[in-house]
């Protein structure tokens, strides 16, 4: 059931990205181009999604298990540090360069767009590099405590 629910969530999420036009990088860049001819659509996508999300997460917050009886695993990190902001800035630069963020890129891969495949492969390499860097850091920290 957990796997089926994940498949359906991903599917509905992807359909939402197609319907909203956000699977199209040109439309995303039209939103990010404040100084040009601005397309506010992305703001309404966020508003629609958050309107539903507010209700869902307020229900989720009051529960310790999901409706499928799985542990409720909501993020508990609160600190706003260099890692969070620096990482988000890097992401924003990449987002502004191509108009793709992770979800729309995967949907465009499903549309058979070769350029999206290139982007998605590079994105996976970037994610893999993060793990390599993190593991190296952890090894150094173990080898030389203090």
């Amino acid at each position: 059931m957990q796997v089926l629910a994940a498949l359906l969530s991903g599917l509905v999420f992807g359909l939402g990205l197609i319907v909203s036009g956000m699977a199209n990088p040109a439309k995303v860049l039209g939103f990010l181009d404040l100084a040009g001819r601005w397309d506010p659509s992305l703001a309404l996508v966020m508003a629609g999604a958050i309107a539903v999300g507010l209700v869902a997460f307020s229900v989720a917050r009051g529960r310790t298990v999901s409706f499928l009886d799985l542990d409720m695993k909501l993020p508990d990190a609160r600190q706003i540090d260099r890692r969070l902001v620096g990482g988000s800035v890097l992401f924003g630069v990449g987002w502004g360069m191509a108009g793709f963020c992770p979800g729309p890129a995967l949907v465009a891969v499903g549309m058979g767009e070769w350029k999206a495949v290139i982007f998605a492969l590079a994105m996976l390499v970037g994610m893999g590099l993060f793990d390599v860097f993190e593991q190296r850091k952890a090894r150094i920290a173990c080898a030389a405590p203090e």
Partner: protein
Amino acid sequence: MTIDWNAFTPWPALAGGLLIGIAAAMFVLLNGRVAGISGVIGGLFRPTKGDVAWRTAFVLGLVGAPAVYVLVAALPRPTIDANWGTLVAAGLLVGLGTRYGSGCTSGHGVCGLSRLSLRSLAATLAFMGAGFVTVFIARHVPAY
């Protein structure tokens, strides 16, 4: 600021946004997790017992969405102007940045703001700000 009224699509944007919200709601209420796409994919790099299947299923749902969409309507063709070099550089930055920043447009932007998380608000302001500046430089700074 000039609004491009021809490009602006308020109703599809709102409808698609509601679908995205419903997807995030399903995921948290059924699976007990935040629908953060970079986090769902990133977790596959450090698989723990029992989570590879649902992570893969979520990704397959996203990739399979166009195949389901065409059953109902003609698929809109995306316009991808970036060249291959830009796509590779952008992909690397998005991959690294979303992992260091612990989230992307879905995890911080949609779910985080829905949870009223200040941390996600900071992340969203950071990546949106960086996106605005990047597009400004690419499109409006003559030397570039």
